[in-house]
């Protein structure tokens, strides 16, 4: 299977645009990038907008595109959805359920509703427990206590993302960050600061999936092979996890590595879901790039920046490019394999992409090649 085309809207503030409209724009651009006509699409996999759930949302997007897909609908794993649905699209094509699939997402929490992001903490609200930041902060505190992870090490992840994003004309926040500035960033829920937390952005993205043979028939210009994919779902609420500092990201990556027949040492560049710096740090550990607990040391000294041992989030990630949940990481992986990134890793031949949702509740992985 290959990713035959990618497309996206502008990122940031898109007032007045509904998510169906944004999905259509992203799908149109992905079809243009693949150089194919809408008529060949017979699979449509859509992520339900996180900011507002709607019944039969996948069918609304299909109607807006005058498509009657053989396989279509929404899937919900929060931010892990996209790598997962790319996997489901591959399996659907392999099983003969469809031939050419689009995987798409749109969300408008910046100018539309943010109700889903601000939900109260249930009965635990009586103790002052609210929102998503605190779940990540709870995990970060445990990681710092168990392994001695330092604030400056979380900061190194934000600095790398913002450095890369500053060089990406599509990034919503093109403002480079230094470690000193990071350390001055105000606490939100300690031990997390404002600059540990991703952007809130409107936007949409889409990718086109088909077999390599179909891509040749349709004369797709720059297909990028999908080498492996996997999923793993921690599922339990943060306080209930017997081990807070390892997640099912490990299972997800092992599944994807096995399918691709490679290991972490073969990866040249990584797009690691960075809704919070601690999520990226733990994913690097769970993906086997270093030992559990050594993530802090791994990200230091420019190791994860362009020119370092493992450049990550070369388009700026959720911390700089767009807070949109996930598909932008896949698109940047495709650009790296095509050699067209604004922060191109020279000679990169393998890229791993992580997607995750909730509070490290869901996880999916994609490995791309050349």
């Amino acid at each position: 299977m290959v990713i035959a085309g990618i497309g996206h809207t502008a990122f940031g503030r898109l007032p007045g645009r509904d998510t169906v409209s944004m999905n259509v724009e992203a799908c149109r651009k992905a079809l243009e990038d693949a150089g194919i006509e809408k008529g060949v699409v017979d699979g449509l996999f859509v992520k339900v907008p996180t900011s507002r759930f709607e019944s039969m949302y996948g069918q609304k997007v299909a109607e807006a595109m005058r498509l009657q897909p053989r396989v279509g609908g929404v899937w919900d794993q929060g931010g892990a959805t996209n790598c997962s649905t790319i996997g489901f699209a591959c399996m659907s094509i392999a099983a003969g359920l469809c031939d050419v699939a689009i995987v798409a997402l749109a969300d408008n929490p910046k100018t539309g509703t943010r109700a889903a992001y601000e939900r109260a903490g249930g009965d635990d609200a009586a103790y002052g427990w609210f929102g998503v930041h605190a779940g990540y902060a709870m995990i970060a505190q445990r990681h710092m206590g168990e392994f001695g992870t330092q604030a400056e090490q979380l900061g190194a992840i934000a600095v790398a993302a913002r450095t890369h994003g500053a060089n990406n004309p599509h990034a919503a926040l093109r403002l480079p960050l230094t470690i000193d500035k990071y350390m001055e960033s105000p606490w939100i829920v300690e031990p997390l600061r404002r600059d540990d937390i991703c952007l809130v952005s409107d936007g949409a993205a889409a990718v086109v999936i088909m077999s390599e043979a179909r891509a040749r028939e349709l004369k797709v210009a720059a297909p990028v092979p999908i080498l492996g994919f996997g999923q793993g779902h921690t599922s339990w609420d943060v306080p209930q996890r017997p081990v807070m500092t390892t997640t099912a990201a490990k299972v997800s990556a092992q599944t994807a590595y096995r399918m691709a027949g490679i290991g972490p040492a073969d990866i040249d560049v990584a797009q690691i879901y960075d809704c919070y710096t601690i999520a990226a740090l733990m994913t690097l550990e769970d993906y086997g790039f270093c030992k559990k607990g050594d993530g802090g040391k791994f990200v230091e000294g420019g190791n994860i920046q362009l020119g370092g041992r493992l450049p990550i989030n070369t388009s700026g990630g959720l911390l700089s490019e767009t807070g949109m949940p996930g598909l932008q990481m896949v698109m940047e992986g495709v650009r790296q394999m095509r050699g067209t990134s604004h922060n191109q890793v020279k000679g990169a031949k393998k890229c791993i992409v992580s997607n995750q949702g909730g509070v490290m509740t869901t996880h999916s992985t994609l490995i791309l090649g050349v």
Partner: protein
Amino acid sequence: MEAFPAPERTGLNSAYWDGLAEGRLMFQRCLACGHAWLPARAECPECLRAEWGWEEASGQGRLVSWVVYHVAFHDWFKARVPYNVATVELAEGPRLLSNIVGDAALRIDMPVVLAIEREEGVALARFRAG
């Protein structure tokens, strides 16, 4: 100002909140497999059976982790920032969210002990350094 976000009482969890009001922290234990848990649920999450009973916790526990809110996400807590919310594991196994009261410096895995406090008439399972 928004009102205190009081817990929602249900048929399932009323024994928990009634227990706290009477000075006892209760948890559920499965009569079939012995698994113990919080918060309240209708089936044992281990063996999936629905035969269970309430037991009183010793009040001894361990601090798994904690956070400090510097921003209030609800009016009621605006005057309280910075305040902590902690994950506590009871000696019997169940885990709950709580607040750690007192001035002791917090560190992971430190022993903590139950210190029930009332807020707006609701007894809450807070803890202090033990």
